[in-house]
């Protein structure tokens, strides 16, 4: 289980998270919604210790992330896959090498690495692209390689940072299907940060709305769709006022 406990984070004078609290249950996909710049990605980065909180903490499997030493943080990270907004593929490496890097760190032998890469690329419908460089792929393909890199690790948790941002509607739907397929195939717990409502309804078991540094509302897709909260209502309907 992942639990945000009264998380606070500021960058200079800008207070981004101001006491965010949220529980992500094992096996579910939690979608975190919010306006651009409200700290959704900042919250996600705290889960893997890429950022250190000013106050509060994120608890993953009973461990307070900010208190972990380097070795225990490395251990924790080995159980988490992270899909970055712009994929963050290593541009000097081929697709295969991108996927192999994390697997090699886990001490797997060459045969198993090859097997996992083939399986992950097949799952994202990119078999046969292993030798290509990231620069030779389209935006949608790069995101799929990012997902393949995460799922090849067979993690317990997958964190998706704006997985459909910047993609056309059809490619976005493909990515949504991929996230659903990944959950069904691997049974992982997922946290998806997005402001794409169609994607949120499609992949989320529960949805939380982050507003002014705190969780404004959390509920199932149906509960969010029927909410009477004016802020959440405005966001999900995409109204200017």
């Amino acid at each position, binding site marked *: 289980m992942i639990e945000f406990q009264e998380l606070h984070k500021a960058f200079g004078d800008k207070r981004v998270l101001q006491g965010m609290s949220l529980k992500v249950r094992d096996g579910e996909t939690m979608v975190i919604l919010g306006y651009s710049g409200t700290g959704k990605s900042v919250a996600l*980065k705290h889960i*893997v*210790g*890429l950022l250190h909180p000013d106050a509060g903490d994120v608890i993953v499997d009973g461990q307070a992330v900010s208190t972990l030493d*380097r070795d225990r943080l*490395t*251990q924790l*990270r*080995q159980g*988490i*896959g*992270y899909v*970055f*907004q*712009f994929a*963050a*593929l*290593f*541009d000097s490496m081929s697709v295969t090498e991108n996927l192999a*890097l*994390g697997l090699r*760190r*886990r001490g797997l032998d060459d045969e198993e690495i090859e097997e996992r890469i083939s399986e992950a690329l097949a799952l994202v419908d990119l078999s046969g692209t292993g030798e290509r460089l990231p620069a030779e792929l389209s935006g949608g393909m790069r995101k799929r390689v990012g997902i393949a*890199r995460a799922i090849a*690790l067979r993690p317990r948790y997958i964190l998706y940072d704006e997985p459909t941002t910047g993609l056309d509607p059809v490619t976005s739907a493909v990515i949504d299907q991929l996230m659903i397929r990944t959950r069904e195939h691997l049974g992982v717990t997922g946290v998806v940060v997005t402001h794409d409502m169609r994607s949120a309804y499609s992949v989320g078991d529960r949805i939380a709305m982050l507003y002014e540094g705190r969780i404004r509302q959390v509920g199932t897709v149906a509960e969010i769709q029927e909410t009477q909260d004016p802020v959440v209502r405005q966001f999900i309907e995409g109204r200017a006022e």
Partner: protein
Amino acid sequence: MIEAIGRRSISAIEELGRVGHFLMDMGRGVRDVSTWGRLLVVQMRRIGVDSLPVALFIAAFTGVVLALQASYTFTGAVPLYFVGTLVGKTMMLELGPVLTGLALAGRVGASMAAELGTMKVTEQVDALETLAYDPQSYLVVPRVLAATLMFPVIVAFSIAIGVVTGWLTSLALLDLSTPDFIKGLKLFYVFKDVWFGLLKSASFGFTISLVGCGVGLSTRGGAEGVGRATTRSVVFSAILILVLDAFWAVVLL
């Protein structure tokens, strides 16, 4: 004005703190031999072998100029075989290490800052961390070690080429015989000349790569930030090379 001085002082102290923190992190990264060990050879080739043509080109022309300027200065007053002395001493003690260092601050340091800066702003460094790698072990340690080990090798070749081109210039243009050139070369030679130059170049390699990696990993702000990081890396490295050059001269000569 006092406020401005105070602000600058605090900023300088903070910068020192960041450097200290970076060095401590690097020390931690050195322990992870399994990560940087297999990357070291790749970096040694990139930093060492690939930099050799530039370094040798500079050294070759430096040798020519040194021989000609020595002869021009000595005319009539100092025996011409001192051309060998001047070419050898200057290449070993000063111009070999310093000119190569300055050239490689541009080639190696800037390239490290740009590469790591791009990785930073495109979240590749974060991705590396989420894959359970320490960026220090994976990115910084192999580069710093490779530069520290390879700079003396490059400088040794540079010194040799500089002396050879100085000798060839003396033969062709100065009417100085090979025995006379060698006589001059050996006249005040001590083994310290060699190790002093090589030690200095190792310190340049360490500094240039450290600055390149440190500046690269602290890059912010997209392509413009990468450009700024590259420029800062070259400027800082060049300044530090000259400071270190003076430091070694005071300490060891």
